[in-house]
């Protein structure tokens, strides 16, 4: 968050209460103020696709406000009519008629003369898993498979801890280089990747998923991703060639244990 930008906008908006501009100016100032907050007040900046959608919503809301009352519509219409027909606004009108097309022309020019950009990326972070996968020749049904060690958490905590420790070893031998010490996706190699590796501490990642999903992702890695998830942009290896089935389940236990998150459990269908 860029507090200075936000504070400046808040001060101006507060000042509007005393200036009492007409409805059209009020709506325009609010639109600009919100735009400045979204564009410069958020850090890292939000993508232009989201900025566009947000400003579309804000525009709708402001139009709704201005047109919800008959007298406000009249005020806006009177202002616009006065601007176009009143001689005292002749210079301002002339400037508007010249500057507006120039602004559009500038927008077109800057769009055409900038550096070529890669197309927008709509990458699906959590693609749907297949119904089943083949793991070293063995068919695993992802709809029904469960972590074989999860039940030990209640029935035999000591053995469970041993499996978590096994997962810890697997993690620090294989995963830490990309996913990092603290599992925030900031390992040694992370900065060489785009996009960066998954951040397991983020409550909106592994906490949303079942363990079978993680098993699929670890076992099949980037090559197993569907095209909507751009497998060519991920460096995740297919760990099925390096790790045993048991090791994958153990490292899953460790990831959840370390981040203090719980996997999504299979729900009862009614």
């Amino acid at each position, binding site marked *: 968050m860029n507090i200075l930008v936000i504070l400046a906008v808040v001060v101006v908006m507060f000042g509007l209460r005393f200036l009492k501009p007409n409805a059209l100016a009020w709506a325009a100032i609010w639109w600009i103020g919100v735009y400045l907050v979204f564009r410069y007040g958020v850090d890292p900046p939000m993508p232009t696709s989201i900025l566009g959608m947000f400003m579309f919503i804000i525009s709708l*809301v402001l139009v709704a406000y201005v047109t*919800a009352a008959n007298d406000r519509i009249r005020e806006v219409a009177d202002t616009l009519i006065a601007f176009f027909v009143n001689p005292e606004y002749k210079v301002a009108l002339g400037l508007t008629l010249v500057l507006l097309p120039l602004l559009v022309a500038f927008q077109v020019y800057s769009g055409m003369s900038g550096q070529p*950009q890669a197309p927008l990326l*709509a990458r699906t972070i959590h693609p749907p898993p297949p119904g089943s996968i083949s793991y070293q020749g063995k068919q695993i049904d992802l709809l029904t498979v469960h972590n074989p060690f999860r039940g030990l958490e209640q029935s035999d905590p000591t053995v469970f801890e041993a499996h978590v420790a096994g997962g810890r070893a697997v993690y620090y031998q294989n995963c830490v280089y990309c996913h990092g010490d603290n599992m925030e996706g900031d390992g040694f190699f992370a900065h060489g990747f785009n996009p960066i590796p998954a951040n397991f501490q983020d409550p909106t990642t592994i906490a949303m998923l079942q363990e079978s999903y993680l098993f699929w992702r670890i076992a099949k890695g980037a090559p197993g991703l569907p095209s909507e998830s751009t497998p060519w942009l991920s460096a995740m290896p297919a760990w099925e060639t390096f790790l045993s089935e048991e090791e994958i389940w153990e490292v899953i236990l460790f990831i959840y244990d370390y981040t203090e998150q719980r996997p999504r459990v299979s729900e009862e269908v009614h």
Partner: protein
Amino acid sequence: MKDLRLIKDYRQKPLPALLPVAIAILVTAFIAALVALPAAAIPQDAVANPEYRAFPVIGSRVAIWVVAQLHLMFAAFVLAVPMFAVIIEIIGMVTKDKRYDALAHEFTKLLSVSFSLTATLGALMVVMLVVLYPGVTQYMVSIFSWSFFPYILLFFLEAVFLYSYYYGWGKFSPKVHLSLGIALNIVGTAIMFIANAWLTFMNTPNGISETGALLSMADAMNNFIWMPINIHRMIANVAFGGSIAAAYGAYKYLGAKTQEEKAHYDWMGYVGNFISISALLPLPFAGYWLGKEIYAYSQSLGITLMGGTFSWLFIIQAVLIGNLFLAANYYLWVSMERIEGAERFRKFIKYLLASIAITYLVWATPHSLVATVEEARKMGGAHHPMLGVLGVMSAKNTAVNILILTTYISFLLYRRGNKEPTVSWVKAGNFAQLAIFIGAVAIVIFLGIFGYFVEAKVRIALSVPQVAVVLFTMISVTIIDIYLYRGARSRGKIKWGEMPARAQYVLFFIAVTFAWTMGLMGYVRAGMRQHWHVFGVMADTSPDAFTPTLGFASNVISVTVLIFFSFIAVVFWLTGLAGKKDWEPKEGALIPDGEHADEEVVR
């Protein structure tokens, strides 16, 4: 509004609607019987390699997609209108206010032509299924063979009850007429439940063996998402039907010549919109239940729906629903302009708008963002560290609950518009209402934030207390309000018929947005099976066995909505004909036997 001449003047001219209905029923029954014949011994190969035929130019999938969606939209309307027509009729009986009876009658006028179109489109869909997808149809018939007969019988009963309810208006005793309406609703709901069993089976099959052979038709019908879809569709139908009826009111209002007509259709538009928005409020909760059951059935289906490619369609849906809420509130605020005394509430509109804007922004924020490479690099991936948090269920649930409460406040202000409470406990009553609102918002926000710190199972379960708090708030505040404003002093009149035209266009906007949302979500529900006809059982091996791009799907849905409203325009026009005067030859014009028309009139 006291003048009922308008309604009484309408002559009941039976439109030639029974004929296409009868034809449609016969065709459907005939084809169903034809298809059912070989179903007893469906070869196993037919499940693995179903047969297909290609539809010219647009392909079989798009053809069946458009027709099915059109059939569904008309069916939704035809099922919904009797629901609220009966309720309005009951209100009229209880209050002994003839206006309600007249309004219910006016709503049912839309049914006659719509029912014919529903039946015709349904028959067309069956024909297309048999011709284009014979293998799939044969398999579905092998599973649901015996359910087609009660379906046809109920359809026939629906026609009988619908036409006797419509044409019998004022011809039977009120109780008999009301019974016809209730029977119509029961039969209509049963039809929908049967059809829902077929389509939900394709998503979450049940009652079959591993090879797809039928084990139990009852289990196949009562599959995992059958009841969630039944409930979701029933509520959505009322929301959609109410919006179409409101659009009809707006259409008639804009063409009204007299003040009485304007007053009547202004009221009709208001009631239609009230019904629509009342049904919209609980709809997200029914949707969550459906989504939860889909996820519970299959993680793969659940993630396809909410996390994979289809999640982008949910973002479009969020924008459409945000627009619906905004438009519904806007209509109420503009309506308050015609209520004397309501201007004292105008100062609250900006705060309500601020609440709508914030919740709408949260509601529409995706979890993974569309970004350029440079933007993604700055964010460190497709997740924005701040916005990504708003893209998950905890934030969405919180936003939609507050959005619903905001809409409810707008309605409360509208309701109070021209009333001045006279009871001695005004301050205490207002304070209690305010305390309930503040408490509810605090609880909803707290549970929303709490959801980030608990496991998924608990987080999903938190939506229940959130919904419960919102429902409790709406019910308790309404009860307090009823007593608070009992015997209230009037501050002025509601000037029915003095609505600006823009409010009527908002009603059109709401109807179109509902239709668009239905088309979008209908595609999502069917499309999430991806390359399966019956998920996990019968693979789609046709040339269309791929998921179309989001842009293509959106275009097909938009064209379907356009076709639907072209049909609806015809429905409105035909319905309006019933109220027109009889044709008479122009004065001085020649009539066929060579005599002048005016002479004919004299004679």
